[in-house]
């Protein structure tokens, strides 16, 4: 058996062992379920108000065909004006990496804010020493 095969067999054994220990205690599973619920609700609520009224969430939600057609026509007109107007160019979609920088910024900002304080603390200690 080659080293590569040997490694593959080892990794397969590790994978099996990890899968076997996949079960979670009830409390942890419940907290994960709750976190998932919050995330799904957040995804729903991220839609702007006009979209909520358009899409709706209840059983009676929805638009009549005529109203939807009117809105589609109005939307198409707005897009046409934006494209035609020389001062406006479609904004390119943000890259995934750029988006992710924004996502991570919350924690990073916290971290760097703390870091400034700690660096200030260290400088003062150095001066005192």
């Amino acid at each position, binding site marked *: 058996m080659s080293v590569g095969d040997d490694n593959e067999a080892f990794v397969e054994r*590790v994978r099996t062992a990890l899968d076997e220990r996949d079960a979670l205690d009830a409390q942890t599973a419940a907290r994960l379920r709750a976190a998932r619920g919050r995330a799904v609700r957040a995804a*729903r609520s991220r839609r702007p108000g006009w979209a909520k009224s358009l899409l709706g969430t209840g059983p009676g939600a929805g638009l009549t065909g005529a109203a939807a057609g009117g809105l589609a026509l109005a939307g198409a007109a707005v897009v046409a004006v934006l494209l035609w107007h020389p001062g406006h160019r479609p904004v390119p979609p943000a890259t995934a990496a750029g988006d992710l920088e924004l996502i991570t910024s919350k924690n990073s900002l916290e971290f760097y804010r703390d870091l400034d304080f*700690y660096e200030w603390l260290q400088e003062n200690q150095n001066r005192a020493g």
Partner: protein
Amino acid sequence: MGEVLNVGSDASRSSETLNGFLAGVERRAFRMARLATGSRDDALDIVQDAMLALARRYGDRAPAEWGPLFHRILQSRIRDWYRRQQVRRRVFGWLGASDDEQGDPLDAVADDRSVGPAGEHAQTRFSEALERALRSLPLRQQQAFLLRAWEGLDVAETARAMGITQGSVKTHYSRAVHALRGKLEEHAP
């Protein structure tokens, strides 16, 4: 009465799809975060943050994109946690406690795994030893190994999730396999 355009049901399906995706990844994500932090509560916070960030920022993306995005966010959160631990250690150091007293954050976590009784199944002992071995790996080796070997991401996907080059992924993965084999040698079948 006009035809009703039931767009609401699309939104509902979308929520169900997101819920299904998160349900499918949450356990492994939690285990990966717990192996990295050594703390159940910190791991839960990290996974919750990652779920919320995915939902808020990328909930409208195609579900096929969620996997790589979620893992990238998760890895970012784990790295943030590590940085904060490092800062705390530095601060404790300045305030008079020695590094030895503070130790590695992972060392400070109570080990709540029970040691199996004598004669317990070899696979259980292997699993426990594996968890200890994984926790002892450097973070990047640990996460590269878990993403590749357990989560099934390829080299390119792992590199994107971790924000490192594909060459680094290969190096970390290879070192992790080598280290784990060494640590688990006595449990070889």
